[in-house]
């Protein structure tokens, strides 16, 4: 199982859970497994064309998946994935 850290803005979709576990062999599969467990989460993660939304980064352990193989990045059992929104703020 891969551990996935869920950011605050997405926790309403996971019943408040900040960490969930999924069975997946790639980031793309992980997104689909999350969607089966928590319907509606996929559209919060990906845009209409299936790309990761522009305000989210997905890290495999400490590495941004964009610098690995993107959504095709393979996952191992001991991996930890963190979904992290980019910095924001306001006045």
């Amino acid at each position, binding site marked *: 199982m891969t551990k996935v850290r869920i950011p605050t803005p997405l926790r309403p979709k996971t019943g408040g859970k900040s960490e969930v576990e999924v069975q997946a062999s790639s980031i793309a599969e992980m997104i689909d497994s999350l969607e089966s467990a928590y319907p509606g989460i996929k559209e919060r993660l990906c845009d209409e064309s299936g790309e990761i939304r522009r*305000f989210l980064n997905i890290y495999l352990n400490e590495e941004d998946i964009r610098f690995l193989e993107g959504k095709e990045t393979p996952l191992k059992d001991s991996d930890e994935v963190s979904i992290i929104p980019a910095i924001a703020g*306001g*006045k």
Partner: protein
Amino acid sequence: MLTIPTSIAEEMIAHARKLDPHECCGILGGKDHTVSQHYPITNILANLSEDELGRFDGPKLSDLKQLSPEERADIAFQMDSQEMGKALRDIRDKSISLQAFYHSHTFSPARPSQTDITIAMEFESYREKLNLPEPLHLIISLLDKSSPDIRAYRIVNHESLEIRTILT
């Protein structure tokens, strides 16, 4: 204390003025509390759809919803995650470290808002997983258009603490 080369401070002010009335944002890298690299980042807030605003909460969300997408960037910012990822990667490649995130307040003082504090604390909860050092939060106020005010803060335990900045 945070030391910033005057040239980088001028670049940040120029970035803030260029985007005014929208807020600008960016990242500073360096070593030992001294900034050496400036990464302006796109504020993508004006490009976000209504359902993507779930990122913000409470009063900020209702404020944002009352505005047109264009106007939303006047009161808030959202960094482009791809550019942020690239900047953090470049900082690592250069063997320097993250020093600060910055953004502008185009018509209010250089003090962190409640939204700034909430989101900084949220980032703080992810930061260790990414093996990043604690960043300062820099605000450039254009309240007085002729003399922009740059101030740096530590945001910890839901409170902000001003840190002295030195321009060199």
